[in-house]
């Protein structure tokens, strides 16, 4: 019987003598290196926040808009990881995690109601109804924080005119997509779903009122209301309904989700107004994210008073909050 006498070690397997002798030091060194690597990674994360996990398409040839603010645009990381989208969870970080698999294609929006030409628009059609503009708007949440977002879209009036609203159309009702299967956390939201919102006709037809299809030069991330949403910059954020599936022109003031939830706290108009307190938050100041201090004074109509104040001439804005 032949016993194969292969060596058990190669020379290179043998621990060098000085490493062996200083093996404790060596282990400390390993620990230190590991610690430094972790610290380094944390540091890198600060310098260069992790890449966004959602898929988006670049939108080229965007026209700039005279409505854009010159204020500093908020970091994209903030706008895409800090969201109120209760269908995907009530924590601000939830939507970015839970909306990843939200299917937004194919997508159609039904535009109907008191109109001459009711119609269903595919997302492809919506993208081509008018040249896409970049509009940098201030966005003020009712929770007293604010961001500056470079939206992409065009005035809502563009699509409205195509369906020819009749003289009965005094309000517009918006409805967001709702699917319990895709939105398993819906039961925790504590609000009636689907999410519904509404505007008065003159508010909806105002050129500032945007039908948004993108931001930061790309299509909307799911958590920010893909594929198409409303953006009404002089109203608190919750007025700007996300992931629209229905736009209905109606005769009477439509019900709105937060007003249904708590009429005492959320009015139909919900114009940004530093003088009308919310029961939970003073609206006099806001924190510009990602800052720490809530010391930015809130402006009437979020600073869009020159354009929109005339819509509310003669109205008691304390009563119609």
């Amino acid at each position, binding site marked *: 019987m032949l016993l194969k006498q292969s060596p058990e070690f190669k020379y290179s397997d043998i621990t060098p003598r000085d490493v062996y002798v200083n093996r404790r030091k060596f282990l400390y060194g390993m620990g230190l290196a590991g610690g430094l690597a972790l610290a380094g990674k*944390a*540091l890198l*994360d*600060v310098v260069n*926040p992790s890449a966004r996990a959602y898929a988006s398409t670049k939108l080229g040839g965007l026209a700039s808009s005279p409505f854009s603010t010159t204020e500093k645009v908020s970091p994209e*990381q*903030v706008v895409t*990881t*800090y969201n109120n989208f*209760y269908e995907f969870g*009530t924590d*601000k*970080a939830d939507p970015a995690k839970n909306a990843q698999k939200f299917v937004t294609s194919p997508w159609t929006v039904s535009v109907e109601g008191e109109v001459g030409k009711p119609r269903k628009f595919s997302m492809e059609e919506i993208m081509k109804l008018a040249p896409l503009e970049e509009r940098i708007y201030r966005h003020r949440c009712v*929770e007293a*924080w604010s961001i500056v977002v470079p939206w992409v879209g065009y005035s809502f009036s563009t699509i409205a005119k195509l369906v020819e609203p009749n003289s009965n159309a005094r309000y517009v009702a918006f409805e967001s997509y709702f699917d319990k299967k895709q939105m398993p956390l819906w039961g*925790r*939201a*504590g*609000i009636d779903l689907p999410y519904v919102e509404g505007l008065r006709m003159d508010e909806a037809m105002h050129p500032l009122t945007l039908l948004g299809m993108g931001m930061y030069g790309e299509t909307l991330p799911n958590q920010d209301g893909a594929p198409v949403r409303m953006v009404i910059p002089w109203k608190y954020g919750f007025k700007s309904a996300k992931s629209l599936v229905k736009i209905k022109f109606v005769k009477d003031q439509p019900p709105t989700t937060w007003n249904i*939830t*708590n009429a005492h706290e959320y009015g139909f108009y919900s114009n940004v107004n530093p003088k009308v*307190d919310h*029961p*939970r938050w*003073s609206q006099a100041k806001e*924190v510009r*994210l*990602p*800052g*720490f*201090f*809530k*010391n930015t004074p809130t402006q009437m109509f979020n600073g869009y008073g020159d354009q929109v104040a005339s819509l509310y001439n003669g109205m008691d804005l304390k009563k119609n909050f």
Partner: protein
Amino acid sequence: MNSILKSKWTKAVVFLICLVPLGVLIWEAFTGNLSSNPTQFLEHATGDWTLRFVALTLCISPLRKILNQPQLIRFRKMLGLFAFFYGCCHFSVYLTFDQVFDLHGIWADVMKRRYITVGFSGFVLMIPLAVTSTAGMIRRLGNRRWTILHRAIYITAIAGVIHFYWLVKSDIHLPLEYAAVMATLLGWRIYDHYTKAPKPAPSNRPVAKQSTTTVAPD
């Protein structure tokens, strides 16, 4: 078990564990992980830990009796003071970042917003408890008065939960979870009080003189 509970090292270890939430927050602050709204993140984190430490403090008396481990009393004061400590952190974040030292704004908030009224009351109620937490103060107050005073922790617990419940906009699951925990802890005390008609055995609180008729604030 008893020797572990009696060891001074156990107390040191528990003390360090109680500091872990603060350490984590500081770590997150230095690594830029306080979310996009750092102030709100800090407010929620410190508020959560205040409620948790109030609940932990209220766990001591039931556990002493149920597990028959009277030595657990050694940790009650520390946990209570940590509840106060995290409450102070909570208030400091609100004072510094939310109100930016606007005392008028704070007073307006306290008067106007019921969730702040009730939360602030719960916090203020902890101040006399923290001040009178020393053995010397127990002696000065007398066990009976001290015990009555320290029942205020029950009000703080209830106020804290209501504060949270009134604060959230629509998702009330988390406040209700806290409410269930506090209700259990306070409910046990009511149950304990009425099921043992004769006064329970004198507590093992490390106080020299005490009358045998006193009831620990549990």
